């Protein structure tokens, strides 16, 4: 049962590599994705006993298992993957090298699925590395010198991050840190060596933070995401970054447990780093003209919202973080897809070139608008809720730092508005002397955008829908 979500992408990926014809390949890709989603749904409903893949000498083993947090991410990721796929078919077709793209697209999903169902830190690390390696081809897709450079940068940063995490793991292993995950932490009461553990946590968070684009290791993100083809950058920004978040959640709440971390120097430092990231990300996005780059910067900033929430180490904060994860995934995907669609059609890449695009591709721009609103956090979109929770929890639990945090979030929201809305505005209201020509993209591209836009919108309207389970989940962490 646990293996199914891993099996289908694997099979699909291999097929994608082998099948030369386009239609059957696309069909098989879709089938694989649907099956993956289905199997993960089933897994979430049925649950499963943890299983041991392999005992590695040295007292560690690769174990798979499923729990609440796993369920959440499992569903999120497989769903988004499925939704984005149709968009990719036409898009990649004009990029070329489709087999390679879809093969790695599915294999990356495999690694993500593994990430969600991994039961202990070593397994997590394994799938994490795997994800890095498998997602590199997505960045590399075009094979140009820029792409190569970006890919190697991405590789270097990710591996450095992962290795930091591994180093933390080395330190932990001695205290049983490589055991099965359990909410609230698995470390026995460690008196004297707490400094060591806190250090380990700090390092691991920094390490996983790399994927989530947190300062100081965010530089790769804004290089790598833009050069990837739009669907790839969509999932990279929307999901792969979340893998980093998942890593941090796992280490913080399932290995160390909040208790030994609350109030330590590490927590404060990391929170400050997160806030810095939020702010600087938004500012750079505001200054950036290249659309995809801008979105990438905004990713940097947005994901750190979630990190900030997690680092508060409070139930509300965690809840806010989870919501942010979900909504940012939806919103940022739709933004990237919309951007991709626009570039695909118009070939324009800079934010100020989209004058009147709203007349030409209204649906696309509508989706873009919804995504933007959700990202800014304007009620009633979902983004509003997540940011609300984050801000309140920040103020509730933390004095000065909390207030500063809330302020930063607000400021960054304003900046977000500043760098997203103008596009929408100029897109819809180009001015009188503009003769639009219809050039909306096809259904296979529209449907995903619409779906994602809705998923960024609907749960916001009926916030209970999502907030209820997630609040339970976040409460269970403590």
């Amino acid at each position, binding site marked *: 049962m646990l293996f199914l979500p891993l099996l289908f992408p694997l099979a699909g990926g291999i097929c994608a590599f082998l099948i030369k014809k386009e239609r059957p390949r696309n069909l098989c890709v879709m089938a694989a994705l649907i099956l993956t989603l289905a199997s993960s749904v089933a897994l979430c409903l049925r649950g499963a006993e943890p299983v041991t893949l392999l005992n590695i000498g040295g007292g560690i083993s690769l174990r798979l298992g499923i729990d609440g947090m796993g369920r959440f991410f499992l569903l999120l990721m497989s769903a988004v993957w499925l939704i984005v796929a149709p968009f990719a078919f036409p898009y990649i077709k004009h990029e070329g090298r489709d087999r390679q793209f879809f093969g790695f697209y599915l294999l990356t999903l495999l690694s993500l699925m593994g990430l969600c169902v991994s039961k202990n830190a*070593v397994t997590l690390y394994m799938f994490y590395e795997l994800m890095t390696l498998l997602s590199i081809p997505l960045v590399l897709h075009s*094979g140009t010198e820029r792409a190569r450079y970006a890919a190697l940068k991405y590789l270097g940063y990710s591996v450095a991050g992962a290795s930091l995490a591994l180093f933390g793991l080395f330190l932990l292993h001695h205290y049983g840190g490589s055991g099965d995950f359990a909410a609230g932490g698995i470390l026995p009461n460690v008196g004297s060596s707490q400094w060591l553990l806190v250090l380990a946590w700090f390092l691991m968070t920094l390490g996983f933070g790399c994927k989530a684009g947190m300062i100081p290791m965010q530089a790769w993100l804004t290089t790598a995401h833009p050069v990837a083809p739009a669907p790839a950058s969509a999932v990279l920004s929307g999901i792969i970054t979340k893998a980093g978040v998942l890593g941090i959640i796992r280490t913080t709440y399932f290995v160390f447990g909040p208790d030994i971390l609350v109030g330590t120097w590490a927590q404060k430092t990391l929170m400050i780093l997160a806030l810095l990231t939020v702010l600087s990300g938004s500012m750079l996005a505001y200054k950036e003209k290249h659309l995809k780059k801008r979105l990438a910067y905004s990713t940097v900033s947005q994901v750190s919202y979630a990190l900030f929430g997690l680092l508060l180490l409070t139930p509300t904060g965690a809840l806010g973080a989870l919501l942010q994860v979900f909504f940012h995934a939806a919103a940022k995907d739709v933004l990237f897809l919309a951007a991709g669609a626009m570039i695909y059609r118009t070939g324009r890449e800079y934010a100020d070139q989209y004058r009147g695009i709203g007349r030409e591709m209204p649906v696309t721009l509508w989706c873009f608008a919804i995504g933007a609103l959700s990202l800014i956090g304007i009620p009633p979109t979902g983004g509003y809720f997540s940011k609300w929770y984050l801000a309140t929890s920040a103020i509730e639990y933390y004095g000065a730092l909390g207030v500063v945090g809330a302020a930063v979030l607000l400021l960054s929201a304003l900046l977000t508005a500043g760098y997203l809305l103008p596009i929408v505005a100029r897109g819809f209201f180009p001015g009188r002397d503009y003769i639009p020509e219809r050039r909306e993209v096809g259904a296979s591209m529209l449907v995903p955008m619409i779906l994602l836009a809705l998923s960024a919108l609907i749960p916001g309207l009926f916030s209970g829908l999502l907030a209820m389970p997630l609040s339970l989940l976040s409460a269970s962490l403590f």
Partner: protein
Amino acid sequence: MFLLSCLPILLPVLAGAFLFLWNPESRRAREIYVMASALLTTSIILAAILTTYTQGHDATDCTLVRFSSGMTLSLHIDRASMIFGMIIAVLWPITTAYAFEYMKHEGKENKFFGFFLMSYGVVCGIAFAEDFLTLYIFYEMLTLSTLPLVMHSLDQKARYAGRKYFIYSFSGAAAVFILLIFLMQYGTTLNFTYGGVLDLKKIVGEESILRAVFVLSFFGFGVKAAVFPVHSWLPDASVAPTPVTALLHAVAVVKSGVFAIMRLIYFGFGTEFLYGTSAQTVVMAAAIVTIVFGSARAVRAQHFKRRLAYSTISNLSYIVLGFTLMTPAGLTAGLVHMVFHAVLKITLFFCAGAVMYKTGREYVYEMPGLARKMPIVFATYTVSALGLLGLPPLGGFVGKWNIATASVALGTPMGYAGAAALIVSAVLTVLYLLPVTVDSIWSRDTLVYDDAHAPKDPNAYMCVPLLLLTAGGVALAFVSQPLMALLSGVAAGM
């Protein structure tokens, strides 16, 4: 029965010597002869190991020469010998097969295979040596038997490399000679004894000088193990034909050095004499520096084999670090990495060699698009690279994990530094191994060949070893637990 342990040494040496006298005309005949003797040796080694495993040491112990009462040239197969013996016994015939094809464009095959066989026997001797004198003897022999292989082409670079090689090796041996004198003076016996041979009554008051001698001899053996600062012969030696660099400079010779260091620490001076002393700090520091230094240089090196050589330097010091921890866990960890690195690195070298052989390209920036022409080579390369850079659950990770956790368990700053060094080197490893794959597959500016001269995968002589080794490397990773159980026998003094 004692023949079992001395035949694998004598047989290849004699077979190699005979090759010079016989000097066969046809390549076919030579290949059959060489392969037969290699396989025979391998089977004898395995038989010997098996016999010892089932019937105990007495079954295979043997004394070749008795110089005087205390000094003998004698063989004894213990758990460590088994591990090392198995590694070389498996890898040698495979490399031989590879060499048949490769040496066609190097020439002087007769000389090559003669010394190649000889060094097989000598390495065996190192594996099976019972005491320090025997170890020292074979250590010297190893230098002599491999020198012609390094200088094979006898051109300027080869001569330089060879010169450097033997100067370093002899200096190392000289240091070891001093060790020998001291062990004769202060030791109860020269035979390897787990826990050390020092005579506790005699060494009273002499501890400091003995520790100094330990450090000296550590670097003496460290020459072959390419420990910083006595490493620099190894990259230069990569001018040798690829089978040599692959087998000798990734496995046999360098592992002999590492193996000797293991003997020195655990079976010579003994851990309780060294543990926690300044001597340990020094040797650990050396290992740590080498780890980082090697990887850093590997990133900068553009020559493919040179890069791999530097990577070898770094990885050898993983093992050495494990040994210098002077804990049973460290010993086991070091041995594990010894096994895995042997298989993985030889594969990588074979790939580099295959590329050189088919396309004559030696530099990593000459690889673009080759993967599409030589899929097998680069597939095996990538898999082994992933293994080496420590993607769980592949070999590299197992080794790294055990070494690092063991060194953290030391609880000293040095221990943490060791783990940190491993991490740094891991990052660098990715940076020097993967770009080759990336370029070879994805680069746009694929060089265009007219199909006549387009490079292809080499023939079975090369591909089969490649595939075998890769498969073996992956398979080993999945039996890592039983493997470690076996290895922990060494730490149990078996």
